[in-house]
């Protein structure tokens, strides 16, 4: 029988795995804190 897979499964299944040791870049904002955060 043919069952339609949920999109999540497909997305998960077809997601290209990151290379070992891959570090995602820091989010572009907000930027660094120069003194302290209130």
């Amino acid at each position: 029988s043919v069952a339609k897979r949920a999109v999540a499964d497909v997305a998960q299944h077809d997601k290209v795995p990151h290379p070992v040791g891959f570090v995602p870049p820091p989010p572009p904002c907000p930027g660094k804190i120069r003194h302290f955060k209130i």
Partner: protein
Amino acid sequence: VPAAPLAPLGCDDPESEAAAEFAVNYINGHSHHGYKFALNSIENIRVISQGLNNDIIFLELDLLETTCHVLSPTPLANCTVRSFAQHAVEGDCDIKLQKLDGKFSVLASKCHSHADSSEDVRQVCPECPLLASLNNTEVLTAVATALNDHNSKTADPYLILLEIGRANIQYEPAHIVSVEFAVAATNCSAEDAKVSVEACQLLPDDQSNFGFCTATMVTRPSQDLRVGCQLYGHQVPTPDAGVIYSHPGHDTS
């Protein structure tokens, strides 16, 4: 094939920091009250291209109050950011800039400043004094007493009060009122003022001489008063392109 859209600017990119520095200098240069603010973090940046070398930049900045009054000639880089324990004041600013042919200009700015919460200060420093309201009677008494004390002992020009910058009150183990206020020299000597203080006027713009005083007044268990005033000397007034007031808890635009 249309050119790939430029990658969005990151908040720590050099161009973002250059825009933020320009904006902070603008805010401090157009503020007539309170203290200079230093950049703490760039919260967000959005760039909308208007064409070749013409961008509109929206900046969200998180600033912190420094110990330099806005009338002080001290460069911002040499102004100390108030520490957490000194009851810090934060400024949140939204600024709209234009960058045209590499030159920044501010199109609009709106800032809101507010003191850190007492709970936060108490958490870090249980015995640190907290900011007091600027119209607290003990604060007003301390400022008037300190200014009179300075004027009665100085050979400098008679000083008048411009504004109270900040004040805090400590209750234990001693009762201490600490105040900071901006002053201006008048056309009188302290001696003249004793005769007729009404004749003492602010110096004209081309001779204006502002200064800053700090004072602590102990009322219990003993009485003690310490006052220090410093005049900045005459400075060429900055162009007044709109007034931005930065008082704790006030909006400015």
